[in-house]
């Protein structure tokens, strides 16, 4: 693997390989010395054109645990805010000797442009591009589900037979898109549950079922309920009448969670709008995997950086 741009072009074997490497990376946290010398001398640049806390910090921690040098650029406070083009930024980073660039950009396809342009030879990791994809988030979600279901016996397994309901703002969610492709290739069945205004115009090419009733979706007893954040920063029109109404019809609260089978887990990619799409009680309950997702994010990102950077550049 040279780049990680989307989960759509991952093969099942590649995805499982990354998840398995992440299992090994997860062991590092229990070591006396929580650092591996594997990527010593490699330079990884985090290029963030959009705000982020957990993804940026997670990539930084992951790179540092593998002994790589990390440089983080935020759009604010760098020449990016002076209007420098993506091309000039990329060429600057190439001249500085970056081995990998982790990029988050508000434009869908930005990471693909970087990878295909020839401006920079480094490996590109998509850390979220517009409303397109966020592959490492999907990988860590799959990893979290697999670990909850199989524990130490998770290695080598897919998610065959697991049912996942993704609920909420599908339209603006790159997390949803990446998860649809990844979970499907791993063998899970995915259903999207959202008001019609928060669904893409057409989901006909997607391997999913679509529903418009959260209670019916919960009564179907999915193994995983994945709540999505209402992305108010991307909402330039009225997608639902009011916050109160959204929370009442689409919010996951105690009464709704009680309809789920006891083993079902509740996921949220964060940051959460407590009280809007998910109630504080549910977010902090034992079903919730929110903090596991954050911890697993480091293991997954270590696995991705390892897979992209440790070997010789071949394919």
């Amino acid at each position, binding site marked *: 693997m040279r780049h990680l741009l989307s989960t759509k072009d991952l093969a099942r074997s590649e995805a499982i390989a990354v998840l398995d490497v992440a299992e090994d990376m997860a062991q590092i946290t229990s070591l006396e010395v929580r650092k591996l010398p594997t990527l010593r001398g490699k330079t990884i640049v985090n290029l963030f054109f959009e705000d982020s806390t957990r993804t940026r910090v997670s990539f930084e921690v992951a790179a540092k645990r593998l002994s790589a040098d990390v440089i983080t650029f935020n759009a604010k406070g760098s020449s990016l805010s002076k209007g420098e083009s993506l091309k000039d930024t990329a060429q600057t980073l190439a001249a500085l000797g970056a081995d990998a660039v982790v990029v988050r950009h508000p434009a869908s396809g930005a990471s693909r442009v970087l990878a295909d342009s020839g401006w920079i030879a480094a490996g590109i990791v998509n850390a979220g591009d517009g409303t397109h994809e966020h592959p490492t988030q999907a990988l860590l979600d799959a990893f979290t589900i697999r670990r909850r279901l199989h524990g130490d016996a998770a290695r080598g397994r897919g998610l065959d037979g697991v049912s996942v309901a993704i609920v909420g703002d599908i339209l603006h969610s790159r997390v949803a898109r990446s998860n649809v492709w990844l979970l499907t290739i791993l063998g899970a069945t995915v259903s999207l549950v959202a008001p019609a205004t928060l669904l893409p115009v057409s989901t006909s090419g997607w391997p999913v079922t679509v529903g418009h009733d959260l209670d019916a979706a919960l009564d179907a007893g999915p193994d995983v309920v994945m709540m999505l954040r209402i992305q108010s920063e991307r909402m330039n029109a009225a997608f639902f009448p009011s916050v109160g109404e959204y929370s009442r019809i689409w919010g996951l609260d105690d009464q709704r969670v009680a309809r789920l089978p006891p083993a079902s887990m509740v996921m949220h990619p964060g940051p959460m709008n407590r009280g809007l799409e998910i109630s504080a009680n549910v977010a902090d309950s034992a079903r919730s995997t929110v903090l596991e997702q954050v911890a697993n994010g480091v293991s997954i990102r270590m696995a991705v950086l*390892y897979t992209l950077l440790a*070997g*010789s550049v071949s394919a």
Partner: protein
Amino acid sequence: MSARIVLQPSDIARALTRITHEILESNRGGADLVILGIPTRGVFLARRIGAALDSIEPGSGLVGALDVTMYRDDLAHNPTRPPHRTDLPPGGITGKTVVLVDDVLYSGRTVRAALDALGALGRPRVVRLAVLVDRGHRELPIRADFVGKNLPTSTKERVSVRLIEIDRAEEVTIQ
């Protein structure tokens, strides 16, 4: 070029039994022993040595696996290799006598990586090295303490260890 068998199943069993006794002799008993196999085949050899230790001195065969992939110095020269799992017996390795087990000792680079990997896990009192085959051609100042068979080879030859646990055969061949 055809492969020549240098160790039969019975030879392998005898070698491991002898190594087991040598480990016990050098450690003056089975106290504080931790046998760590280096994946892939070292792990199976370590388990066999552990079982043999346990039958001689019950409770002495603490076995684990030590993956060294992340510590190799040749990572950048090969396609990305998947790491294996590291498993330590309860109690860890600090203050213990650790015996590293691998199938073939060649350049010594795997063992160097293993020594680095151990450093991240704790501080053993002593580290020893047991190998089924020592084929020479060391590139580092590393020597095995317990050797199943010394096998003079040329660098052009290939030594293959097959173990019944994963290879459906039990033999050491050279070709």
